[in-house]
């Protein structure tokens, strides 16, 4: 007998061991997220996938699905919270969308569109961050980093390299490169690495392919992030079960 829980009143079937987010995505219900990737261990740091269960907030990427539980997801309060969290990500970094080669393919930007974000609301911090363009093929722009640790996990779990780490704490934390000089050119990074491919923003990009697609033909010019992520998740499930 299959188990199910309720997502905004709709019954969602789940398999033993699935999280709320995995079960929702399997059933075709997108829950916004930035640090979660189906191929990586969940990290629960971006807080965008927060849902309310029994009156308490939980990150749905780590919360196990349980029989009969009532999950609130698409409420006005949670939508406003997600928008505010995304606005904070924007003002804590330097996200110059008009000049960014990732624009139109950026998941941070696409999530902001999905959440109806039209302004950044909060005062901009304009932090001064060091860029690392030392590598001939890969660029690291810390202005665009949201410290979601996707590259940190992907490098360890998928590439078997351990190129990245987060250094420092709180607002002062930054992405560090594990190499003798601290520079990307002396690390084992390569443009084919999943750490580069999975970066949800333009923090890690491959050089010489920027602006490959003109405005109007980029990924998120064609479809919303919800459509893309649900399709990718379904494809992944079809392959890996």
């Amino acid at each position, binding site marked *: 007998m299959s188990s199910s829980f309720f997502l905004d009143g709709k019954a969602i079937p789940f398999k033993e061991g699935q999280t709320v987010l995995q079960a929702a995505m399997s059933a075709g219900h997108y829950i916004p997220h930035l640090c979660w990737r189906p191929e990586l261990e969940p990290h629960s740091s971006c807080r965008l996938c927060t849902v309310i269960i029994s009156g308490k907030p939980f990150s749905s990427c780590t919360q196990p699905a349980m029989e009969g539980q009532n999950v609130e997801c698409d409420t006005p309060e949670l939508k406003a919270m997600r928008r505010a969290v995304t606005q904070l990500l*924007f003002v804590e970094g*330097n*996200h*110059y*969308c*008009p*000049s*960014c080669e990732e*624009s*139109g393919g950026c998941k941070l*930007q696409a999530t*902001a*569109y*999905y959440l*109806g*974000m*039209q*302004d*950044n*609301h909060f*005062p*901009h911090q*304009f932090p*001064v*961050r060091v860029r690392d363009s030392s590598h001939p093929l890969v660029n690291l722009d810390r*202005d665009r980093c949201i410290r979601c640790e996707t590259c940190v996990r992907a490098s360890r779990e998928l590439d078997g390299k351990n190129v990245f780490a987060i250094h420092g704490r709180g607002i002062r934390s930054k992405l560090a490169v594990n190499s003798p000089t601290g520079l990307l050119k002396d690390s084992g990074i390569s443009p084919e690495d999943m750490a580069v491919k999975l970066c949800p923003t333009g923090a890690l990009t491959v050089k010489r392919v920027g602006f490959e697609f003109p*405005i109007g033909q980029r990924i998120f010019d064609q479809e*919303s992030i919800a459509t893309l992520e649900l399709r990718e998740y379904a494809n992944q499930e079809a392959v890996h079960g």
Partner: protein
Amino acid sequence: MAEKLKVATCSLAGCFGCHMSLLDVDERLLELLEIVEFDRSPINDIKHISQPVDLGLIEGGVCNAENIHVLHEFRKMCKILVAVGECGITGGIPSMRNSFTLKECLEEAFVRGAGTENAHIPDDPEIPLLLDKVRPLHHIVKIDYFLPGCPPSAEAFLYFLTELMAGRDPSLPQELIHFD
């Protein structure tokens, strides 16, 4: 005929791209002019807002003392004030100088720059004082609405103005929200 909506516009630290996009509504500009009347705007070259207006559209962020002066004039004279485009909303491309000190920027442009003669930083008192950082409009005054885009498309302008004039919430549908 219903009274026309009085609109003032200006460009602060912007590139006039947002104004060009507004003009990009093409022949629909004639329909727009049926319901909208421009006060101060680079489109008609009126230099100051002559009377309180319904709507102020500001493109560009704030980079110097004159920008602040103009922004305060708009806030005082406009019932509804809208930050238009990435620069007005986030500081945009001009705010890329915020990673450097003002001294570094001025020296790069006027002292160390290629081909400079009689190299010195301009200090004519008529030149508005530059601020240490380029700031978005909402850092200085209250902004009522934000119309994102670099520039916002002509469709986004039309949608926004039409909804606002109809007394509805002018929030853009997802497909019209762009930050580039």
